[in-house]
């Protein structure tokens, strides 16, 4: 099982221009300049690969912080 810290790091890897250090567990990711539905696809792909969990758009929309999203992933396990 991956820790929250590892999840945050994997989440940050999906961005091209955003400094990974800018992303923490408390980051409200929808507010990041680079966040878009296309990055959302990369996050879904990452979660599928790393956790074998199929996140839905609602999971993404209803999560405010990166930690919220991590908790959604755990809830699907």
């Amino acid at each position, binding site marked *: 099982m991956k820790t929250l810290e590892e999840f945050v790091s994997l989440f940050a890897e999906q961005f091209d221009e955003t400094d990974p250090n800018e992303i923490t567990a408390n980051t409200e990711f929808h507010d990041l300049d680079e966040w*878009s*539905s296309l990055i959302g696809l990369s996050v879904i*792909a990452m979660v599928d690969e790393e956790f074998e969990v199929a*996140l839905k*758009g609602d999971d993404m929309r209803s999560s405010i912080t990166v930690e919220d999203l991590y908790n959604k992933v755990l809830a699907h396990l």
Partner: protein
Amino acid sequence: MAFFEVKNVRIAGMAAGVPEKVVCNLEIENISNDYDAAAFVEVTGVKERRFDELTVSDLAVPAVERLLHDLGWSKDEIEGLFVVTQHGDYIVPATSCIMQDVLGFTKECMAMDISLGCSGWVYGLSSVASLMSNGMLKKCLLVSGDARRRVEFEDPLFGYAATVTALEYHEGNTGFKFHFGTDGSGYDAIIIPDGGARNQISASSFVPQQVEGRFYTPLQSRMKGMDVFSFGISIVPKSVKKLAEQFGFDYLSYDYLVLHQANMKMNNMIAKKLKFEPSKVPSSMWNFGNTSSASIPLTIVTQLKDSCEKHSVNLLCCGFGVGLSWGTVAFNLDHIVISSLVEVNQKCRSQWV
């Protein structure tokens, strides 16, 4: 479990019609509020699309004409014409009936439409092959495709295309192995909300709403991209594996995996999960975009013409999307006829209307 096998039918030939007019996504300004054109092209793999003021029958008719010519089939021989589309020429009647007349097929020709999108070619193939397998119908045509006339040309994912697959009765042929599935709980993942019986057209039907960074009226098809992505990467590998397990074959021994051309990122992910080499997973997205029920046959026509004409190739194809609906088929193509791509403009159209 919706598994079945249809024998004694083969695909004899395939063709595709697309608009001559090319739209390049990199030239579209303000492609979305959320991302730029370059990012869109990189993720989806859709650089160009074909688009014009043409309908699915406008694109299909010349493709049928060319394929019949290349096969040496007479119009009088065609006993069934099946059209898979969700953007027919009219809401009523069926496009297949209009095409029977435009093509000059005999009145002893069965014609029907099937309303499915991304999974539609596989469903259409199963329906037509099943009707033919007892040998009563000898030659039928399956048209599949969409021309989304209600969507503005700036919509960067979808292109217009219509394809035609010619099927013939062939006693002893190994035919097709199918697996199908449906999850109607995702009916609104891809939907045109207004204009049907449920939500009739009203003034609000013309008011644009923002959906994942782009604006669509309720009369235009909109998509929950993340939901469809999640659906595709999980359901397709499972369907392929189930089919292989049911019929006891090694899916990696197949020559090609031809996927519905949904978006590049999704298809790369599916191929990776199934451990298919990228060279065995052809794509037509770069030049034609997502062409709905046309995408699998269009990919075969444009990317596998040489292989399918000169060799015997084993194909695995999976269509998945709107519905939500999916279908996987395994079959052999043995030296079939593939017509060169038919490019249609409005001038061509005026020749038969």
